[in-house]
């Protein structure tokens, strides 16, 4: 059960009532006062419900079945030519990659694909990428770097596929090599978390010069369910885990882990997807415009410094221990 979908229900009913009344108002002008009152109520509830969401509510928002998926963003690019495959074993549909025009600019788009219904989700493995998918990611990063084309990624995954086949075909190695390629790519990289950013499986697309999150997206070291299972042996304590994990865009901006938040319409991205997507693409363009001024060396150096800094530690006054055998 998605808590946001539940909370939305009342609003959607109210919305329908208002729409119905509006049609009736054409012949019965006296209804207009009632409509106004309902609209005020609607806005009040909307603010109550969505004005300040808890982390767990945000997790549910990031998983909302109507939330725009990567394919919605790709559909709004000027052109897109999909490039398939890892060259070895399989084309993983849970990652879409290819060359595209974003405005006047050529970009290499790499996007994790979540399904919108059960059928799509089965095909896309519920957005969990397999080693072949990550090898496609790595290949396209390397190709973009070789050809001097900036990389634009869209992140949306519960996490990397934890299946037998993925272990047999070296999931760890596949992710590790994506990370490696991202740190050495000689082109600008802009990553946007549009839904759920789950663990290392998300990071494999998200070491970037500019990292953005949609306001109600989440990005976490582990899924709240996974975290609860690891720490307390009880996946049902996911809501509690979510409250600890600092997985909201606001938290992560504060830690310097992301660089920018893309505001969502009240009620979430799906309440006005076209406007949200347009804003997102515009912000990506702006970031690319800034980054394109840097030389390849400076880009790689700045990226290094950025990730080198992240963390929270302190220095304990003590003499380093010398061990001798």
């Amino acid at each position, binding site marked *: 059960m998605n808590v946001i979908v539940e909370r939305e229900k009342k609003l959607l009913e109210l919305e329908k009532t208002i729409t119905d009344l509006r049609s009736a108002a054409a012949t019965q002008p006296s209804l207009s006062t009632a409509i106004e009152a309902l609209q005020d109520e609607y806005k009040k509830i909307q603010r109550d419900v969505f004005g300040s969401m808890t982390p767990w509510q945000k997790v549910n928002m990031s998983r909302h079945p109507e939330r725009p998926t990567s394919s919605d963003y790709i559909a709004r690019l000027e052109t897109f030519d999909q490039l398939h495959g890892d060259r070895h074993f399989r084309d993983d549909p849970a990652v879409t990659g290819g060359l595209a025009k974003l405005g006047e600019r050529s970009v290499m788009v790499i996007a994790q694909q979540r399904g919108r219904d059960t059928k799509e989700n089965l095909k896309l493995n519920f957005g969990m990428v397999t080693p072949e998918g990550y090898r496609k990611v790595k290949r396209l990063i390397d190709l973009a770097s070789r050809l001097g084309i900036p990389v634009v990624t869209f992140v949306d995954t519960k996490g*990397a596929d*934890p*299946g*037998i086949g993925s*272990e*047999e*075909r*070296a*999931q*760890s*190695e596949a*992710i*590790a*090599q994506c*990370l*490696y390629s*991202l*740190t*050495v790519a000689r082109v600008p990289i802009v990553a946007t978390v549009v839904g759920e950013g789950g*663990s*290392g499986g998300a*990071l*494999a697309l998200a*070491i970037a010069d500019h990292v953005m999150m949609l306001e109600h997206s989440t990005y*976490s*070291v*582990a899924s709240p369910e*996974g*975290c609860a299972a*690891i*720490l*307390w042996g009880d996946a049902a304590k996911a809501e*509690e*885990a979510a409250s*600890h*994990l*600092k*997985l909201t865009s606001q*938290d992560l901006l504060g*830690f310097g*882990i992301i660089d920018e938040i893309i505001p969502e319409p009240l009620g979430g991205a799906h309440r006005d997807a076209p406007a949200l997507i347009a804003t997102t693409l515009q912000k990506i363009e702006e970031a690319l415009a800034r980054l394109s001024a840097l030389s390849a060396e400076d880009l790689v150096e700045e*990226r*290094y410094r950025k*990730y*080198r800094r*992240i*963390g*929270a*530690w*302190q*220095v*304990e*006054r*003590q003499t*380093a*221990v*010398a*061990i*001798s*055998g």
Partner: protein
Amino acid sequence: MAMPEWLRRRRNKHETTEDAAQWTKCPKCGEVLYRKDLAANLSVCPKCHYHFRMHAFDRVSMIIDSDFNEIGNEVVPGDPLKWTDTKSYPDKLAAAREKSQLTEGVVCGFGTIAGHAVALAVMDFNFRGGTMGTVVGERIAMLLEEARKRKVPCIIFTASGGARMEEGMLALMQMAKVTAAVSRFMGDGNFFLTVLTDPTTGGVSASFAFQGDIIIGEARAMIGFAGRRVIEQTIRQKLPDNFQTAEFLLEKGHIDMVVERSHMKETLARLLDYTAKKAPVAV
């Protein structure tokens, strides 16, 4: 290895207060073993060759010729998320420190192996399951940067249950930090070798563990991305016994070699010898 003084004191105290702790049971064959004998045998069961998880200092002592100059030990964790569940994160850290006699989950430093100068990092499962938080990432990055300056090979022994939950995304970002340091180190033509010990999973497995020029699996170590339990829950069936063992990974082509602990040092010595640059190469 002569133990550093503070470590010797703690161990002695521990042993005195709890005599039973001088004995342990092999989890594989059930043999009851005297801890000192076990340590003398590199923590390998003399009966069934089961490789016990090793304390980082024992590992260092097993691998390094003599002196080991530790770096990064002064870097210790903060509490960025102000995490508290059953205990506060600082309390958990204090307990881990007491239990493991370590300041964090990795020991880093410089020494020689059969005369070859190396940078060495050894992770320790005893410190919060070898989880990688900020300090593990920071210490390893420091080591790689210093090794790059000194132009010496770097060897990392991994042992990890994954990222440390209590540092949230700051823990995940250590995958990026260490990878950046690895790629910069390797980009200068330096030799990077990883030894995957039991267990190596999650964010450590999916970053520097699998970025080595050469990747060694210690015999019978469990190595994988997802934990065995997670996979079994997902597929709702039991996995074969050898799944995710070093031997399984060798067959599947993921790692270069499987090495018994008793042969580890000599193997590393040979690999360092092959890759040692005898004289400046004309480039």
